[in-house]
């Protein structure tokens, strides 16, 4: 997998847990404070890791993609202020989120030190209770019906756990499908506009994904964008020398 535009990776991150951890490591390696400027600076590296990392489990891919989209949005806003999108503006901003995360990571190191120190407390062994001679103490108020109802609840609670890996993979797959779909749409409709593009998105996540996909396609010169004037809508058209294969979609496979 080679992306000429993404080769500017100057540091190597060995391992990371979750998208915020990766992002924080990238920022810290550049010896930057957490700010929108520094986030924009490491956005490409972040994308590179998301696209090439073998350690991101499918269940968590969607979480990485959302942060990637937020980064790309942040970066493009610095370049094109008119790009402000109300949907994408919603929710906690990435800078605040990462700064908080950073504080908790620092605190977790202290907790780890305490955990390993072995200066622990002990509860009292439960011998006192054993001295009472209890043959059989029926629980008041327990009926056959209440047991069945409770078992139904237990099963209902397990189901999401059992389905979780499958559900997450399905979600990541649907994101991949969406990216593929966008790619096809842009190629078949010679020209579309950014407004139309985002308008079709059914949810905020979809809008973010659409936007991420668009920026990727621009970067890889599959499409060209043209903005007639500041605050005008952006026209999108397929690039005359666009390759016929679909590396973006493949990169998320």
């Amino acid at each position, binding site marked *: 997998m080679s992306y000429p535009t993404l080769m500017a990776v100057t540091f190597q991150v060995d391992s990371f847990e979750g998208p915020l951890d990766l992002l924080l490591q990238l920022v810290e390696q550049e010896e930057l404070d957490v700010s929108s400027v520094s986030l924009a600076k490491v956005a490409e590296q972040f994308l590179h890791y998301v696209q090439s990392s073998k350690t991101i*489990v499918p*269940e*968590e891919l969607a979480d990485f993609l959302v942060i990637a989209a937020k980064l790309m949005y942040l970066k493009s806003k610095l370049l094109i202020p008119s790009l402000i999108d109300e949907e994408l503006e919603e929710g906690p901003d990435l800078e605040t989120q990462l700064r908080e995360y950073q504080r908790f990571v620092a605190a977790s190191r202290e907790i780890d030190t305490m955990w390993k120190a072995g200066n622990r407390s*002990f*509860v*009292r*062994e*439960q*011998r*006192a*209770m*054993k001295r*009472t001679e*209890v*043959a*059989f*103490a*029926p*629980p*008041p*108020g*327990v*009926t*056959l*019906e*209440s*047991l*069945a109802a*409770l*078992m*139904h609840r*237990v*099963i209902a*609670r*397990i*189901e999401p*756990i*059992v389905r*979780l*890996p499958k559900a*997450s993979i399905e979600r990541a797959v649907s994101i991949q499908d969406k990216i593929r779909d966008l790619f096809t749409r842009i190629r078949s409709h010679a020209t579309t506009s950014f407004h139309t593009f985002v308008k079709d998105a059914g949810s905020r996540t979809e809008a973010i994904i659409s936007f991420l996909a668009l920026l990727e396609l621009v970067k890889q010169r599959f499409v060209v964008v043209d903005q007639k004037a500041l605050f005008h809508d952006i026209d999108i058209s397929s690039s005359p020398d666009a390759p016929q294969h679909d590396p973006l979609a493949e990169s998320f496979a």
Partner: protein
Amino acid sequence: MNLEAKIEAILFAAAKPFSVRRLAELTDEAPKDIEAAITAMLESLNDAESGVMLQRNGSEVELVTRPEAAEVVAQVVKAEAQGELSRPSLEALTILAYRGPLTRPELEQVRGVQSSMILRNLQLRGLVEEREDVRLGQPTYAVTFAFLNHLGVASIEELPEYESLRGSAAVSDVLAQLESSVDSIEELPTQSV
């Protein structure tokens, strides 16, 4: 930490009598220092307005509740042993009824919560018993006959919706996850603890 506090901590946590000699070994002090500490503790602890006191019996000492607290303590013990079951306890009992016998890790896998205290409490109340069969080196637990009797059923199969609830695919799937990661919970899918 001074010697008296160390002795108090030992007696508290172990919840049984200790001899002066044993306390001397554990704290790496001379028996005569243990004696001195105990004498001091008998004075300070037993004078104080405390719910707990030090009892001496020959060469052994033990921490016990004060006689004045006997009534409230007896009430607590009784409530613990015979009162209403907490929701988590009831849940564990239900799972063992429909899906038992289960080992403790299996029960925990189904509940998603650590259950050792609850299992012990259910055993004390005579609602759950350890069975002879062992799985993966762990003892298995099931509800007692006395409990079924109390519910008015002669066998476990008479529980409402027994077949379908026992055969729940979700429960089987979650138990299968446990088998595929026998070594530890750290091998559960996606994330380790």
